[in-house]
Each structure stands twice: as structure tokens, then as C-alpha cells.
């Protein structure tokens, strides 16, 4: 099991083995939404707030 730091509060998060780039995970400590920027090595960043816009 891999680990990474929460980009918001620094807490250590346990990351699932089937983690994918782009996944959004919630920090168990501070509740922030984090985006998986990379999996190997794992990099997390704040997940952007995004409005719902869709195309045709």
C-alpha cells in the first residue's frame, strides 16, 4: 500500500493499489478533495472546483 500527503493539511493518506490518475479522493483528516496527479510516485493536489458544462 502506498502513501501520500494531503495537499491541504499534510496528513498522510493510505492509497489503494488500484489508484488511477485523475481519481478524486477525500482526505480523511481535513475533508479536502484531492486529485491524483500521478500514481508512481503518487502525487496529490487540490481537486479543482468545476462547473457542470457539457458539449453537444
Amino acid at each position, binding site marked *: 500500500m502506498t502513501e501520500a500527503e494531503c495537499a491541504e493539511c499534510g496528513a498522510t493518506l493510505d492509497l489503494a493499489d488500484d489508484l488511477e490518475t*485523475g*481519481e478524486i479522493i477525500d482526505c480523511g483528516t481535513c475533508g479536502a478533495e484531492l486529485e491524483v496527479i500521478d500514481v508512481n510516485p503518487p502525487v496529490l493536489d487540490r481537486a*479543482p472546483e468545476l462547473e457542470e458544462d*457539457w458539449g*453537444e
Partner: protein
Amino acid sequence: MTQSTYTREELLAAHEQLVDNDCGTADDHLYTDGGTASPRADGGSASDASGISSGAKRTDGGSREPPVVVKVGGARAVDPAGAVADVAHLVANGREVVVVHGGSTAVDDTLEDLGEEPTYVETPSGVVGRFTDERAMEVFSMVMPGKLNTDLTATLRNAGVDAVGLSGVDGGLLSGKRKSAVRVVEDGKKKIKRGDHSGKIESVNAQLLETLLGDGYTPVVTVPMLGEEQDGSVTPVNADADRAAAAVAGALGAELVVLTDVSGIYKNPDDETTLIDSAKTPEELKSVETAAEGFMTKKVMAAKEALTGGASAVIVSDANVNDPIVSALTGAGTRIE
């Protein structure tokens, strides 16, 4: 007439009749005082085989009625013939019309012809939408402003309408920020998907439309829109055509008629007798929003955007009747104000 397709002779005959002896029926209030477009003072310009003299200026000092923006679908279920005849009818009687069209089904068909698969994603709120990667955006540009817009413009010209096809890129007609990242739900997990070529319309070049309308043209508008990147550059990106129609209607203060393959918005989508006639108050609008399911959800959101943006009314109505636009403007379907 009970037919659903017309020969060119039938269209022109109906057109003639309507211009000459529109016989004081319930739809009279739809038109201006009947000022028919007069030939341009500067003479000498193209007149194509349909007999349309381009660029005629209005002599009636302007329309009393707001323009009509008609959203026609591209989906297979919707037959444009009735709408085309109705556009010709309205224009011949002096009403300004802007046609907006979609066509996502045709984009999928072309992707498949090329041996490729369209990508669809589900948003966290359950809306299913296209994810437009780079290749899909190329095909999008081939199909929407390319094949569909060219064909619809020619079809309207055959019906006697002086149509001019435009996409949101032309003159920055529809512009706004590109949204390259989108939140999706995939295999039950929340994800961010990057590389989407879509955007949100924030601005409409109403002046371009008004110039063309004032010269007697009928703009035929489609997506893509002009998407602004973070570095300031612009690129064509996908946008929802119902929302594009809403943005145009808002910018022009028009009545928006959204033609679809059902008769309107149903309180209970499985029960055809529960058609909602109209929604004029916030409470009535709320119940319409609650009632809408599936593809109708997006249309109701677009309707709200249109009204907030300045449209005078939005009517969601059946495309597959003989006079779908005039019917919508005179009570058919669901009218939201």
C-alpha cells in the same frame, strides 16, 4: 396538410399564399405589419435560383415582435422539413428568425465511419455528456459547421429563406472560457478527466446577428463556440447546442422555440396526458424542473439560462408536426416565461 415532407413547389406555393393572403387567423400577432423585404437600393447583387435577392433592407421601420430563435435538433428522430417551411413562413411575413441547430448523433455516426468510438461520461449530478477529445473535436468541426450547417443552409435557401450559416467561431459569435477539465463518475469513482475540448458560452456577438437580420438574412447558427484558453489564445470548442440557442435568444431578447421529438415537458414523462402547458411563476418553473428527466433536464436548464439572459419566453414543443414553430408560438407545447 397532413404530409410531413414537402416538394419545393409546395413550399413556394404555401409561401406565396401566406404572403399574399394571410387570412386573419389566430397567428396574425406573430408578424410585423407585413413590411415585406424590398430590393436593395444599391442594385446589382447575387440573386440565386430560388429568386432570393440578397441583402434586402426592411422598409417597415423594424419589427414590433422580438425575433424568434428556433432550435432544431440533429438527432435522427427530428425531421426538419416542417420547421424549414415554418421558418420560410415567418420570414416571408416579416418576422426575424435565427435558426440554431445541433447534431451530436451525426458526429457519432462520422466517428464510427472513421473506425473510432465517441466518448461519453457521466457528471456527478448524473448528466451524461460527450467528452470531446482532440480527435472528436476535429470530427465535430467537420460535421457541425461543415456538413450539417451547409446542408441546412442550402435547404432553407431552397425554401426561399436568405440563409447565412455561421458557427460560434465566426466573428466570435459565441465565446467563453474553454473548460478542459471535467468531473466525472466512472466505475463508481469520482474522477477529473482532462483534455476536454468544450466550454461555456459567456458572450454572444449580437451585433453580427443584428446586422445580418437587418439586411434580410436569416442566420443559421451552430457550435463550436470560440473557447478562450488560460494563455489568452482561442480555439474552437464544443458547447451544448440547446444552451447556444438559449444564449442567442437571451442576447437578442427573442422568443426561443426548442423543437424536440416529444410534444413538450410532461409532469409524468410516462403519461402523455400530463403535458405541462405553461410555467409563469417560480413555483411552476420549479415543478417543471422536477418533472424533467433524461435529455429534457438539459433543455430545461437551457430554458432557464435563456430567460435569465433576456429571452422573452421559451417554448418546448414537437418538431414532428406540420407547422411546428407557429404551433409552438400559438400555444402548443410547454411555454415557460
